[in-house]
């Protein structure tokens, strides 16, 4: 398992976040998990701006788990900016949402989302989804080399 991969969880609901983190941990994911509960902050973190200026943006492979319904800057906006920035466009983004709304899904794929997961109400199913996420992104997926200059 690629433990160098940082998992960035962008989720405004602390309870949702707790459940997600618990699920990740239950699945033995020992990677560094960063949780940010605000859309604007999250963008700053990804781009290395504002209060996250010191955090290097390029020395780590990152998987973004993104909720869509966020305060200030919503998830689709974050997705758009990540995918349209040449430094971040290769960062895989997985939308994790409660919304079964088709238009959100279509818009997300249009913007270049790597995966779109509707969180099941049932926690067990959710746990299963996280397990699959782990298998794909942390075990199977080949990551581009760090510091790759585009």
């Amino acid at each position: 398992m690629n433990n160098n991969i940082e998992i960035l969880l962008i989720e405004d609901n602390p309870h949702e976040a707790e459940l997600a983190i618990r699920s990740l941990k239950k699945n033995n994911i020992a990677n560094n998990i960063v949780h940010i509960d605000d859309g604007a902050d999250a963008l700053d973190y990804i781009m290395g701006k504002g209060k996250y200026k010191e955090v290097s943006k390029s020395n780590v492979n990152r998987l973004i788990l993104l909720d869509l319904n966020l305060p200030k800057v919503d998830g689709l906006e974050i997705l758009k900016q990540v995918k349209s920035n040449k430094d971040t466009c290769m960062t895989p983004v997985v939308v994790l949402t409660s919304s079964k709304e088709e238009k959100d899904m279509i818009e997300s794929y249009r913007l270049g989302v790597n995966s779109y997961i509707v969180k099941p109400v049932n926690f067990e199913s959710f746990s299963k989804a996280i397990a699959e996420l782990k298998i794909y992104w942390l075990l199977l997926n080949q990551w581009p080399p760090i510091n790759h200059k585009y």
Partner: protein
Amino acid sequence: MNQVFEYFRKLFSTSDWPARWHCGKWSEFEGWLYIVSDIMIWAAYFAIPFIILRYVVRKNNAYYVKLYYLFAAFILACGITHFIDAMMFWIPVYRLNSLAKFVTAIISWVTVVALIKFLPSAFATKTIPELEAEIQRRKNAEEAVRRMNEELEQIIEEKTQEIRLTEFKFKSIIENSADAISLMNGNLEGIYSNKSAFELSGRTEEESKEAHWSTLVHPDDIDILKDTIAKAIKTPRKPQRAEIRLYHKQRGYINIEGTVCNLLENTAVHALVFNFRDITKIRTAELEVRQLNENLERKIIERTIQLEAANKELEGFSYSVSHDLRAPLRIINGYADMLHADYKKELNVEGIRLLDIIMYNTRHMGKLIDSLLNLARMGRKELTVQYADMNAIVISTIKEQISLQTRSVTFETNELIAVNCDGVLIRHVWSNLISNAIKYSSKKDNPHITINSNENATEVIYSVKDNGVGFDMKYIHKLFGVFQRLHNKADFDGTGVGLALVQRIVTKHGGRVWAEGAENEGATFYFSIPKSIQNEQQY
């Protein structure tokens, strides 16, 4: 000459010859026969001229009057010679006698000449039978002429009657025509107008004389009428159509429509024929229809806007349901799960039971929300109609459903009729109906499900029949309602949305859904798909 002189000097002398009685030997009988005969001839010859004269006088139109006179004179003269001959028995005036004979001879020859002269015309003169025949012929001819005249008169009478009838017929037709018919001469002066023509402007014949008809035409339409008349004059016998407004005495301006036809060259009519009718009602109705249509269109637009707004609201609502309701539910479920996982040991049996109930119900609520969203999404989805292989859809659905089952179910599937439909949506219908059939026959010993199809002229009908618990027909109205269930949850799990979804999808195709059943005797669900379904059909 002396002899002639001597003759006339001795004209009445009786001295030179003896009286005839003494000349020769006359018996009494011979002498008197001679004398009496001569006297009778004389008398007759004397009477005849008088008869002739009388005839001539009476028939003064008689032809050949002169000839008659000559005849009279000649017969009279002959008579005189006979008288003198008789007289000679006693007085022997031979000279006088010869003179009388000479005169008679002259008259006789004159008569002969006259007769010869008049012979041709005498020949031409008809005899009485000839005349009678002629008269008869003429009478007959006259009779024939008279009869022919009578016949002719009768024919003329009949023809006149016929013409009068025809004229009356056409006059009546025109007089009673609902159309206003007016004839005008080349100077546009009225020659004739029927009743309807006066009624058209709401005026009596007298009132119509007060104002020239052209003053009744709407000022904006007068040019239209003038143009039409001009066109009509240019094109004889071809009616020219016009629609104008005319001032009606009681009703104000009315719409009239009709034709102007130039029959000035037609010797029988010799007029411009105006044939118009009141179409105000039609125009008013058209206007009303147009206004109604406009209203309707406006209303449709309004309703569409309202509907779009409602749809937006519904979309917003389903978005909230989708996100805002699901999220807290997930959290409840998630935390309950955490409690279950981390603190199970600290809970007693009752505590765990209560926790299980919470988790079961959150899961159920999750299902409800998901099916509701599904239902809403189906409602909004546009149909993509294409050929669908019903057999393939049904077989794969059955396989899918059986894989979820632990019990064995017997399926009896007949060859299904293909139809054009939205295969993806129809699969939901089959899936719901088949899973229902399995569910509600699951308590039977040998569940048996029969799938069939049928068709009529306009639609294909599919059916799913089971031998399960069935239902009471008196609750059939609840069968297809959202969240309506006929069985309790303990017996048969379900959300109560499945059949509502089935109905939504089928009605979207323009089809129908219905069911038959009896309690504990199974149920049959039917749905139909119209054969003529089009793409993008919206209901």
